[in-house]
């Protein structure tokens, strides 16, 4: 089964790492999101990208699969530049990736089974449906949802949707798996389940894993390397110990979850309910 559905497009591994970004700059209108970022992603490892909300983590990860194109700079996959390819050429490259979107991005009109076999249908000629059903069963078992094949996304909880989306992302046994805030919106137990799944899949598929998150518990659990973005630049890059002891105050503030003194001052100076012109009891 694995041999039959192996990807047809084989590329040699680059000594520069499986993925590389050089001098990448991205802006949306006048808003500079990423400022001259350079980065190499090591093959077979888990790289976690952290940073405050809106700092460009998702934008950075989308450049790795060229869902966004840079204003300047280059993106390389196995030493081949990919940011300047047309969509037809990119479609072949993207079969090497799996992407778990923040909300799951399951197709509402398709069942769980149909969602998971979607990439198979697009890239392989399916002749034996029994094999396909077994593959879906195997993928769902990996994420702990065997038996949900005939459910629709609207019948699933948030955590279940993420796990089905993860099963879909690994349907083609990708070399690179990208996760965009996989634990956002989940309770601590479900978040831990997702973290465990990320570790499990990285081991079993030997995939290069890139995770965008602001969940530090998850980051410490899964990361071989942590990168922090702030104001469009990389302010920290290292293993978990390096990040925990990093001297940059912005890094310490973020990983400890503390509001800065400037932000606290703004909060204290702003108005309170007692200074509001109308109180709720005025309308009783």
């Amino acid at each position, binding site marked *: 089964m694995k041999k039959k559905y192996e990807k047809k497009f084989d590329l040699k591994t680059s000594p520069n790492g499986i993925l590389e970004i050089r001098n990448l700059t991205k802006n949306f209108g006048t808003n500079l999101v990423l400022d001259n970022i350079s980065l190499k992603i090591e093959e077979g490892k888990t790289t976690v990208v952290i940073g405050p909300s809106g700092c460009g983590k998702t934008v950075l990860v989308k450049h790795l699969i060229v*869902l966004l194109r840079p204003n300047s700079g280059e993106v390389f996959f196995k030493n081949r530049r990919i940011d300047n390819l047309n*969509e037809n050429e990119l479609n072949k490259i993207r079969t090497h990736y799996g992407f778990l*979107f923040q909300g799951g991005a399951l197709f509402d009109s398709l069942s769980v089974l149909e969602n998971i076999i*979607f990439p198979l249908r697009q890239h392989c000629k399916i002749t034996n449906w029994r094999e396909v059903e077994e593959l879906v069963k195997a993928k769902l078992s990996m994420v702990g949802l065997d038996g949900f094949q005939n459910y629709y996304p609207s019948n699933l909880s948030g955590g279940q949707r993420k796990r089905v989306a993860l099963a879909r992302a690994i349907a083609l046994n990708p070399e690179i798996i990208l996760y965009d805030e996989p634990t956002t919106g989940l309770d601590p137990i479900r978040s831990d389940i997702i973290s465990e799944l990320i570790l499990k899949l990285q081991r079993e598929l030997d995939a290069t894993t890139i995770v965008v998150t602001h969940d530090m518990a998850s980051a410490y659990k899964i990361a071989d390397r942590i990168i922090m973005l702030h104001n469009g630049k990389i302010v920290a890059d290292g293993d978990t110990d390096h990040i925990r002891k990093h001297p940059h105050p912005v890094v310490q503030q973020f990983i400890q979850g503390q509001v800065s003194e400037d932000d606290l001052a703004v909060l204290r100076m702003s108005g309170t309910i007692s200074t509001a012109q109308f109180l709720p009891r005025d309308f009783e």
Partner: protein
Amino acid sequence: MIDMVGAKTIDGINNMGRFARFAWHTLIASLRSCARVHTYPLIWTQMNIIGVRSVPVVMITGAFVGMTLAIQAYGQLAGMGLEEYLGSLINISVVKELGPVLAAVMLAGRIGGALTAELGTMNVTEQIDAIRSMGTDPIRYLVAPRILACLLLTPILIIFADLMGIVGGYLVSVVHLNINARAYWSHSANAVELWDVSVGVVKGLFFGVAIAAISCYKGFTCKEGAQGVGQACTEAFVASFISILALDFALVVIFRSIYDTFWPLRSLV
């Protein structure tokens, strides 16, 4: 003031350029889809949603067009003693203009809104990005089947609208206004040519493509959130409506020229 007008103009030209690229990409994807048998189930599904389920509403539209035209025109023709020619007027108007245009407007509201809302929701929930991330062209997978379904079925829906317009006009004219049935049909047969029916049906091809292309484009490019999707639906309907009127005018001019040039030569063939 000049800045604002300039910015709007540049914005409008940018949008037209983006739409032209989208339309070109859609054309290529649609042609390729015709050659690939495994895309036929997608087209078939869309034909059911877009075509089959639109038949009742299009027939109702056609029926009311015919009936209203009968009531409105009777007074004018009866004053000149020409009420027996009511059939000619109703049936030519229905098959050449009112049937195609009003059916297309109804489809723009029903199908166009649905397409924009569906694709817009997919856009804001990253489902379209998910399709791209799995190495699939979203235009080939989502837009081409919808365009082909609209292209194939809008002319057929217009035939349904024309049929009900003729029936509705007949019922009001003969049953309610007591026009002589034999005279009604005799004058209609003399006035309505195959050319008139063909023009109406061919218009359907253009209207269908315009509705689908505009609605899909608006869905793909809508802004974030419920407001973005709602605004896209409104813009899609307005743009589709204006396109239908503009295309109708352009096609009328073209078909008139063709008719004047070639139709008198048909007796030589």
